[in-house]
C-alpha cells in the first residue's frame, strides 16, 4: 500500500496549493493596485495591514490594542449568545413537544421573527443607554472585562441568536423519527426518559445548526452595534474610529480580524457538533 507514497504526498501538496491559489492572486492584485494608486488613506499596502495584524498587542490610535478590542467583541458575543442558548434551547424543546405551548407562543414568534435584529439597536440604546452588566447589579466598576459588556449590546446579541436557535430546536424536536420514539416506548422507557435519551439526542444535529447560524448572526450584529455612536470599545468601534482617522491599514486589518474570528467561531461549533452529534453525518 505504500507504493506511490511520494507521488501521493506530491498530490496532497498540490491539492493544498489549489486552496491558496485564489487568495494569493487576490493579495497580488490588491498590492499592485495599492502601489499603483499610492494613496494609503484609500488603499493600504498589504504589508501595512499585515503589520497591524502581526502586532496585535501594540497600542493603536489611543483605543487599546487590536487583541483587546477583538477580545471585547468576542466576549460580548459569547456572553449574549450564552444567554440566548440557555433560554431558547429549552424553550424550543418545550414548544416542539407541547402543542398547547406551541399554539400559545408561536404567534408572538411569527410576529417578531421578520424584525431584523439590527433594527433593535436604537431601541436598545435608548432603553439601556451605556449601562454595563455589573452596573445592572449595582456594581459601578468591577475592573473586569465585564465593564465593557453593555446590557443593550447583550440584548441585541440575544435577538440575533434567538430565532435561529429557537426555530431550529423546534424543527429538530418535531422531526424526530416516530420509529425511534416507538422503539423507546416498546422498550419500556418513561416519557421523561424518552425526552432525555431519545428526543434530545435525535434533535441535537438541528439544534447545533441553529447555534451555528445564531452565532454567525450575533457576530454580525455586534459589529454593527459597536459602530454606532456611544460605543467605546470593540472591533466595530475600532473600524469606525480608524475610518474617521483615515487609518485604512487598521480598518482593513479589523475587517480581516472579523472574518477570521467569524471563521473561528463557526469552526469551533462545527468541532463541538462533530463531538456531540457526529452520528448524523455518518448515517446511511
Amino acid at each position: 500500500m505504500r507504493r506511490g507514497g511520494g507521488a501521493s504526498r506530491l498530490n496532497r501538496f498540490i491539492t493544498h496549493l489549489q486552496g491558496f491559489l485564489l487568495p494569493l492572486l487576490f493579495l497580488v492584485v490588491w498590492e499592485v493596485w495599492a502601489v499603483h494608486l499610492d494613496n494609503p488613506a484609500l488603499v493600504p499596502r498589504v504589508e501595512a495591514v499585515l503589520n497591524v495584524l502581526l502586532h496585535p498587542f501594540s497600542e493603536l490610535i489611543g483605543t487599546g490594542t487590536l487583541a483587546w478590542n477583538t477580545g471585547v467583541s468576542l466576549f460580548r458575543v459569547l456572553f449574549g449568545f450564552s444567554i440566548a442558548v440557555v433560554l431558547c434551547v429549552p424553550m424550543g424543546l418545550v414548544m416542539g413537544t407541547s402543542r398547547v405551548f406551541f399554539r400559545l407562543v408561536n404567534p408572538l414568534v411569527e410576529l417578531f421573527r421578520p424584525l431584523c435584529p439590527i433594527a433593535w439597536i436604537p431601541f436598545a440604546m435608548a432603553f439601556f443607554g451605556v449601562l454595563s452588566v455589573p452596573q445592572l447589579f449595582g456594581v459601578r466598576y468591577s475592573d473586569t472585562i465585564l465593564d465593557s459588556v453593555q446590557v443593550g449590546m447583550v440584548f441585541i446579541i440575544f435577538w440575533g441568536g434567538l430565532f435561529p436557535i429557537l426555530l431550529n430546536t423546534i424543527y429538530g424536536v418535531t422531526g424526530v423519527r416516530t420509529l425511534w420514539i416507538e422503539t423507546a416506548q416498546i422498550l419500556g422507557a418513561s416519557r421523561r426518559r424518552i425526552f432525555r435519551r431519545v428526543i434530545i439526542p435525535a434533535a441535537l444535529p438541528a439544534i447545533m445548526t441553529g447555534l451555528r447560524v445564531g452565532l454567525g448572526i450575533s457576530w454580525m450584529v455586534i459589529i454593527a452595534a459597536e459602530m454606532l455612536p456611544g460605543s467605546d470599545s470593540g472591533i466595530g468601534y475600532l473600524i469606525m474610529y480608524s475610518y474617521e482617522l483615515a487609518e485604512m491599514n487598521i480598518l482593513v486589518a479589523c475587517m480581516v480580524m472579523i472574518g477570521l474570528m467569524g471563521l473561528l467561531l463557526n469552526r469551533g461549533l462545527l468541532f463541538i457538533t462533530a463531538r456531540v452529534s457526529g452520528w448524523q453525518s455518518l448515517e446511511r
Partner: protein
Amino acid sequence: MNRLLIDGVGKVFNGDNTREVTALKDVQLSAGSGEFICIIGPTGCGKTTLLRLIAGLESPTSGTIRLDDQPIDGLNKSCTLVFQQFSLFPWLSVLGNIAFALDSKGVPKKEQKREALDLLRLVGLADAAGSKPHELSGGMQQRVSIARALAYDPEILLMDEPFGALDERTRQKLQDVLLDLWRKKRKTILFVTHNIDEAIYLADRIIIMAIEPGRIVNNLSVDLPRPRRRLSAEFTELHVRIRDLLEIPE
C-alpha cells in the same frame, strides 16, 4: 390458559388523502402462555398492523385485545416488538442500545455491560459491542435489535420478520438460539415471517393470513416433535400444504 386474546379485532386506516384501507378484519386469535406462534401471509395483509395492535402502539377500530382478561389500554408493558425496519438508535453504540433496554428493567449500570455482552455473544456479535449502528451491515443491525429485545426480557415477544436480512446459515443458527431461549424462559412469541420453512421449524401453531381485507384464513397446529428435521418427509409435506394455502403456484 389463554394469555392473549384477540377478539373480533378490525383496523381501518383512513389516511387524509388516501383511500380507506381495511388492514385487518374480524381477527380472532388466542395465544397461550409459552406458545410459539408464527404468522405468515402475503405482503400488505396486516401482519405488522396486528403486532402493533398487540404492542399497544395502535388501537383497534373494532373488537378488543385482552391480556390475562384485562383489556389493553395504551402501551402493553408486558411485551416488546422487534421492528421490521432498522430501529437502532444511531447516536448510541451497540452496547448503548442494549443498555437502553436494560435500564428499563432496572439492571444496575455495573452489570449492564456484562449482560449486554452475553446477549451479543448469543447473536454472534460480541466483537461489535463498541461499534455504532452505521458501521454494521443490515443483518448485523437486525441481530442487535433482537439482542436488545431479549435484553428487555418481556413475557410476550413480538417479532416482525426479524431474520429477514440474514443468510440461510445465520438464520438457522439464530432460529436455534431463539428456540433455546424460548424453551428456557417459556416466553410467548408471535413471529412474523415470509419463510415457510422457518415457520414450520419454529412454531407450535402457524397462522395464515390473506389480503383484501387482511384476515386470518387458517390456523395450523404443527405437531412435529422437536428438534425438527428440516428435510424430513413430514416437514416437506407440511411445506407443500402451506404453499397451497398461500396459493403459491408451483
